[in-house]
Each structure stands twice: as structure tokens, then as C-alpha cells.
């Protein structure tokens, strides 16, 4: 094998078939054959591997490449131990609470109560936010978009908000006490998911609809505020403990 980039003289008629080389080129060999982006890639890989190696040499305990709980074998063995229990629970549920089948579909008779399955209640509830759809006075109190469109967009907004969480909340804090604000947001979100589900089944809720509508938005705020206050209060004692045990050994970023 020639390592230079000169094309070899073709004496065999030029099939273009390169004989396989049983020696796998080392990283530095590959690097020396490359230019531009591939070369940068190899240089980065070498550097990253060297850093890994340095970390391993510094460490004083049995090796682990990731700073997390190992999936194999720890997590998976414990999960496998729970498997039969879990499947047994499923079978028990199926045997004791059999499903229901309603009357056949009849397009000409609309039932009094139309509901999706429970896990879609939140989305169904977001369709009933017509009262929050702003009316623009410039347009003669006309709504900017139809209530239905507004409801569908509300779904997009909620999912989008959940999606960008990791890009808003950074840093190494993990426990709720370390980040009271985000824990409060989470508790508010859970409460909102519950109240908006209740709003979606408003016609079978034994409650005044406008009161329910107000509670839908007030309750999450209240729960969030309480969570924030409680965690802030707990924080000092808790963080003292954490600092003593943990941050001394592994300072946060």
C-alpha cells in the first residue's frame, strides 16, 4: 500500500478494484491521508480520546465512561426482575376490568357526551379556550382566528413549550430543591394538565362552567407558587447537606 496521494500507474487494465488491506490504518495514519473537515474530525477524535484517557488515569475508582447510572447491567437487570410482576399486573387488570363496547356507530344520532380516551382530555380541553381568544377592537371586535384554529394552535404551543425546556434550563442542578423555579413550573404544568382535562369534560363535571374555567388557570398558578415557596424554604437546609457531602467532592459547573 502506498500512502501518497499520487494515482498508481495502472498496469492491470484499470479495474479500479483496490485489493483489501488487512491492516486497519491507525487514527494518525487516517489523519495524515485527510484534509479539511475529515482531518478536523480525526484531530477532534484524537483529542477527545486523550482527554478520556487523562480522566481515566486521574480517577481512583472502577472505570465508568459516563457520568450516569449504567444501563447495563444495573438498570436492565433490575428492570428484568420487575418484568414478570408488571406483566402479571397487566393480566390481572385485564381479567378484572374488561373493556366495554358501545352501540354501533350511528352518524345520525349524536350522543350527549363525546369524549376521546382519557390521555387526550388535555388536548380536547385546549380546544375549549375560545373565551381566551382575543378580539381585536380594530377589526370591529372580530376575532383574529376562529376558536377552533386557536385551540389547535394552543396544542402546538404547549408541545413546543415542553420541547424547549432543556434549552432554557441549563446547568448541573438536578434536584427540585436546587431549582425551585423549574420545579414550580413543573408542578404548575402537572396541575394545568389535570385542570384542563377537567375543563374538557365540563358537561359531566358537577360544577359551574365559568368557575371551572377560572379554576383551570388559577389552580396551576397557586400550586406553582406554593411549590416555589416550600422549596425555597427547604432549600437552605437541604443545600447545606448537599454541599457537605457532594459539592465538596465534585463542584458544580
Amino acid at each position, binding site marked *: 500500500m502506498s500512502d501518497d496521494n499520487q494515482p498508481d500507474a495502472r498496469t492491470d487494465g484499470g479495474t479500479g478494484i483496490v485489493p483489501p488491506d488487512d491492516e486497519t490504518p491507525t487514527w494518525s495514519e487516517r489523519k495524515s491521508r485527510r484534509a479539511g473537515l475529515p482531518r478536523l474530525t480525526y484531530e477532534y477524535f484524537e483529542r477527545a480520546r486523550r482527554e478520556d484517557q487523562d480522566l481515566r488515569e486521574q480517577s481512583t*475508582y*472502577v472505570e*465508568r465512561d*459516563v*457520568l*450516569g*447510572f*449504567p*444501563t447495563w447491567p444495573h*438498570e*436492565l437487570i*433490575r*428492570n428484568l426482575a*420487575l418484568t414478570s410482576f*408488571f*406483566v402479571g399486573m*397487566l393480566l390481572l387488570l*385485564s*381479567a378484572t*376490568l*374488561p*373493556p366495554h*363496547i*358501545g*352501540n*354501533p*356507530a*350511528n*352518524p345520525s*344520532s349524536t*350522543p350527549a357526551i*363525546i*369524549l*376521546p*380516551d382519557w*390521555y*387526550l382530555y388535555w*388536548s*380536547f380541553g385546549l*380546544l375549549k379556550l375560545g373565551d381566551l381568544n382575543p378580539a381585536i377592537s380594530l377589526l370591529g371586535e372580530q376575532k383574529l*382566528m376562529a376558536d*377552533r*384554529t386557536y385551540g*389547535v*394552535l394552543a396544542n402546538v404551543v404547549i*408541545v413546543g413549550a415542553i*420541547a424547549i*425546556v432543556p*434549552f432554557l*434550563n*441549563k446547568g*448541573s442542578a*438536578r*434536584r427540585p430543591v436546587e*431549582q425551585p423555579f*423549574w420545579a414550580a413550573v*413543573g408542578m404548575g404544568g*402537572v396541575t394545568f394538565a389535570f385542570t384542563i382535562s377537567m375543563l374538557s369534560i365540563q358537561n359531566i363535571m358537577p360544577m359551574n362552567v365559568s368557575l371551572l374555567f377560572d379554576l383551570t388557570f388559577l389552580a396551576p398558578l397557586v400550586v406553582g407558587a406554593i411549590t416555589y415557596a416550600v422549596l425555597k424554604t427547604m432549600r437552605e437546609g437541604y443545600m447545606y447537606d448537599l454541599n457537605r*457531602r*457532594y459539592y465538596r467532592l465534585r463542584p458544580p459547573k
Partner: protein
Amino acid sequence: MSLKEKDEHDHLGWMEEKQLSPIEKGYLFTLIWLDKRFRVVDYLELLETMYYRVNLQMPKSHTEQYNLDNKFWYWYPLYALGSFSTLAYVVAALSGALLGFYYTPSAAAAETGTVAYSQLAMIMQDLQFGFMLRSIHRWSAQVMTAAVFLHMLRVYFTGAYKEPRELNWLLGIVLISLTMGFGYTGYLLPWDQLAYWAGQIGVEMALSIPIVGEWVAQLVFGGFSLGAPTLQRMYILHVFLLPFVVTSLIAIHIAIVWMQGIAEPH
């Protein structure tokens, strides 16, 4: 193996100069004899590797390493939710494949309602274990959805979505949406009153999407009102499209968890 090239293959000469006891000599002779014929040495190396793999020491977990109060076990059920939803998915897939033997996605008129509905009645009333089969399928789907929601909450409240796990969080959002899509398409298949009117809501939601609404309604529901095409499309989504997509996404999701490890609360 010999270090000098000249002794290569001269195993007997090598044995002579080692001054072995008769037992050692007999053992080595047998080993060499067998190795010349079956290349035993390779298999012995494999065995040795397996020995070391089996007897690997468990690495210390994060909490052990830093001598934190080891309350990890206390929260453990919450950490098993992801694997529970995968398990429920497997159970749903198996029972669903069996149900698929008997179900027909046809909205043609039958004695009671449609063919789909009467097939479902047949599964529940006449088929041996049919009622149980549908029950298992439905409950595993319900439990999977519940487990997926709780899994998301666990990940949120333990901050497990943070660097370097952002992409898995996004993938998880796609998966939870697809799980609900699975549930919705399955909810429509019995073609009873509940299914029909839930489908009606779906069509209206699709039509409310700005700009592409009508196109989406056509594509997903096969028209602006419910009918045979809707049932057919829900069936194909439920038993063909979603299983492929969701199974591969779950595989990627778990592979990423495997590479990155389970995020422990600091």
C-alpha cells in the same frame, strides 16, 4: 507460542527443553495434539474472555462514589417507568397481532352496525379467550400511555433532560405524541358510537389547522366526513405505519439511554 522464529511448529523440541513432570508432559502433549487438529487455543481464549466478562466487578454507581445517602432505591419505581412502557408496548404488540387475525377494518353494513363492529362483537362473545385478548390489548395500551406520561414527569423533576440528554428529550416528545396517536387510531377501530364521534372531533381538529388543514384531513381521515376510508386509514396507521416508526424510535431512544447512562439526581 514461541518467541523465536526457528522454534515455530517444533512443539516437541520445546517440550524437551522445559523439563516437565510426566503429568505436565501428558497434559501438554494432549493439548498440542488436540490443538493441531481443532485449534483448541482459540476456544480456550474465548472461554477465558467469557470468564472475565462474567466476573466483571460492578462499577460504583454515582451515589456510592460520592458517598451520598443512597436513597436511589427509594425512587427506583419511578426510574423503571420507561422500561415499563416498553414492556407494555411489547405486550400490546403481541396481543394486537393476535387480535389482527380476527379483525376486519370494513365499514360495510352488517347485521349489527358494520362489519368491523360485528367482528369485534364476535371476538368478544364467540372467540375463545377473545374477550381476554381485547382486554389485555386495551389495558396494556392504557398502562403504556400512563407510564409514558409518568416517565416524562420523572425525567422533568429529576432534571434528567439536561445536557447531554436534550436530544433524547425531544425524541421522547415525538414518542409520547406517537403513543397518543397509537391510542387514538386504536380507539377508532371498534367503530362504535364513541369511536365514531371521537373520529368526528379528529376531523374537525384537522380541518382547523391553518393552511394545510384540508390536506391533513384528506390524508389522515380520507375525507371531510367519516366513512369507510377513515376506518381503513386508521387501521393501516395503527397496524402498519405506527408500529414501524414507533419501534425504531423506541430502539433509538433506548440506545441513547444505553450510551449516556441513567441520569442520577446530583
